[in-house]
């Protein structure tokens, strides 16, 4: 016998790399579970649902998932807008979803049914948390006085930069400029040129690693040898590959770092490297953990969506889920708080920053 879960993520289209990261994490977890005899003797099966990070596609796959009663829970979606579009279906049909990556604050308000039950969880911290965290880190740990903010004009980028800028203002970190870019952009020179005139000590990159790397390298080309700061969106080895030496002096907030990682985490990292020939990033780690959370909830709740949800909601302070990305504890809104760590690029490699805040 087998139990099924769905993974809804972008496997095609412009956001496909993120789906790829998530898929890798999920696959490793699922293989591990099945190698260990499955969940209560049942094989864990995954239904992959491509939604291109497109809200319309997400709203189409969601009822498809919801109607298939053999699917017990959903890992996904990757993008907040897709998650928001899919959400009403999960709430209505009563199937729990856990997103490894969607950080938009609005999700916390739209994920309850009329009885107040939460149907959507996430094992990633919200934008507001890490924005505040990085602002403090920049000011207090790195001693920066002025930063420029470069953000991707999407829900993630805006949410993160808003939190960052607000906190910066509060703690006296001077934000000398805010500029936007769009997904897939390759040329950032005009905005950077503008920044250069204000002479900041650092650039906070509120976006993902693909564009982040280009920003770093183009800043260097323009002669801006500054500190780069970012959220977990920058956490991917491709960042270093693409930015090359311009990646040095980059500080990234991440939910976990190898140095403080558990043995399981280290094992995962090795396995990931062996399978995919690259370093794991936070998306894969979170996806791995999200799958673990779902699997444990199914083990507890059995083949019953409602019970699975209950089991997921049950990961609270007294009963945390211990994953490779650290403790996951859901609050009453399905959000979780996680410790944040800082990684930095040294000699072409990510390493734990010497100074950590907590």
């Amino acid at each position, binding site marked *: 016998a087998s139990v099924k879960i769905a993974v809804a993520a972008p496997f*095609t289209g412009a956001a496909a790399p993120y789906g790829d990261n998530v898929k890798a994490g999920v696959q490793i977890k699922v293989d591990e579970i099945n190698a260990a005899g499955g969940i209560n003797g049942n094989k864990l099966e995954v239904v992959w649902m491509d939604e291109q990070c497109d809200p319309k596609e997400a709203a*189409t796959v969601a009822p498809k998932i919801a*109607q298939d009663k053999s699917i017990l829970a959903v890992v996904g979606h990757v993008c907040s807008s897709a998650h928001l579009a899919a*959400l*009403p279906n999960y709430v209505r*049909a009563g199937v729990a979803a856990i997103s490894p990556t969607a950080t938009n604050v*609005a999700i916390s308000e*739209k994920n309850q049914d009329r009885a107040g039950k939460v149907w959507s969880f996430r094992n990633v911290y919200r934008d507001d948390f890490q924005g505040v965290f990085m602002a403090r880190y920049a000011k207090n740990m790195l001693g920066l006085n002025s930063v420029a903010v470069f953000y991707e004009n999407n829900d993630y980028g805006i949410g993160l930069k808003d939190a960052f800028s607000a906190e910066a203002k509060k703690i006296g970190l001077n934000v000398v400029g805010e500029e936007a870019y769009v997904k897939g952009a390759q040329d950032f020179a005009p905005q950077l040129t503008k920044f250069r005139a204000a002479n900041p000590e650092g650039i906070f990159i509120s976006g993902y690693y693909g564009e982040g790397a280009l920003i770093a390298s183009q800043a260097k080309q323009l002669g801006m040898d500054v500190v780069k700061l970012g959220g977990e969106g920058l956490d991917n080895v491709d960042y270093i590959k693409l930015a090359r030496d311009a990646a040095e002096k980059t500080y990234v907030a991440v939910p976990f770092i190898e140095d403080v990682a558990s043995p399981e985490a280290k094992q995962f990292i090795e396995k990931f490297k062996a399978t995919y020939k690259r370093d794991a990033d936070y998306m894969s780690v979170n996806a791995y953990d999200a799958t673990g959370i779902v699997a444990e909830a199914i083990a507890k709740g059995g083949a019953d969506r409602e019970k699975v949800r209950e089991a997921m909601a049950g990961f609270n302070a007294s009963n945390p889920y211990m994953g490779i990305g650290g403790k996951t504890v859901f609050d009453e809104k399905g959000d979780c708080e996680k410790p944040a760590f800082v990684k930095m690029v040294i000699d072409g490699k990510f390493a734990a920053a010497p100074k950590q805040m907590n």
Partner: protein
Amino acid sequence: MTISKTIKRALFLAVLTIPFLPFASDYVLHVLTLIMVYMVLAMGLNIVTGFIGMLDLGFVGFYGIGAYTCGLLTMTYGLSLWMLLPLAALNGMVWGVLRAAPTLRLSGDYFAIVTFGFSQLVVLFLTNEIWLTRGPLGLPGIEPAILDLSWLSKMLNPEWDWYWEFIGETPYFYMGLAMVVGIFLMIRRIEDSRVGRAWFAIREDPLAAASAGIDVQIYKVIAFGVSASIGALAGSFLARWTMFLSPDMFQFWESFLVLCMVVLGGLGNMTGSLIGSAVLIALGEILREVLPRLGMPAETRFIVYGMIMVLIMRFKPSGFMPRIADAALQNPIIIELRRTLKAKGIV
């Protein structure tokens, strides 16, 4: 003639019963409703691209305008959908006419690129004017459609409460169906009229049309207006149906998708637009279902999708329904004329 009419009626009745059939899950109804949204869009676009022959690459702009008009007015003022539908359509029409002003002189691909730029500007506006649209954060939690006839029922019988919140796919399926049928009939009637003929004349030869006494500019503006209002209508339906909007839903890619539906169906043929939408949306979903069964990963879906599009065009280069102005042939006046001509032995 009469046979096809019977078939059409039977088909319509069959569609009506779909939600009660065993296979009609929420997913199926959702996909069918989605098809109907695209049917409306395709019909709207077909007016400009099929009837007057101007390549409009920015149609989705009106879709977005309609959706946000409806979404924002719902969220801020709680207006009823029944009021919003005409309002959004009107707003779409205003923008359609406004867009016409600068583009009337343009021809061919220059028109195409300006319309394209227009829709990009709409998306940029929706993305960047966060104070109004919440930008990329989108508009989550738009209220579903509500049908409130309690004022009427209270008058009839104080016990009754005719108040329905449209939850689930079935009511939207019927709303969508009503919209498709209504707009289809409406366009078919316009098509088979003085206005429609003027449009076709412009499509075939603008100079000859002008020489036949048609004010080309005005009829273009009318076409833009009608087309835009239909786009906006589809948008306002979408807003209350998906209950979530974000600017990304109105990227230019959507314009191309709708254009593909129109061309695949047959330029200038409304029935074709219906077929085109059904085929392209269904294709995506069928592939989603079929490919994994053939052991192909989710990533291959669009390889096959693209290939099938190419193949359809290869074997149906004029689309499924190549005939233009075919509504006219079903006009009773024309049928009657044909009959008398035949009786007189002239034809």
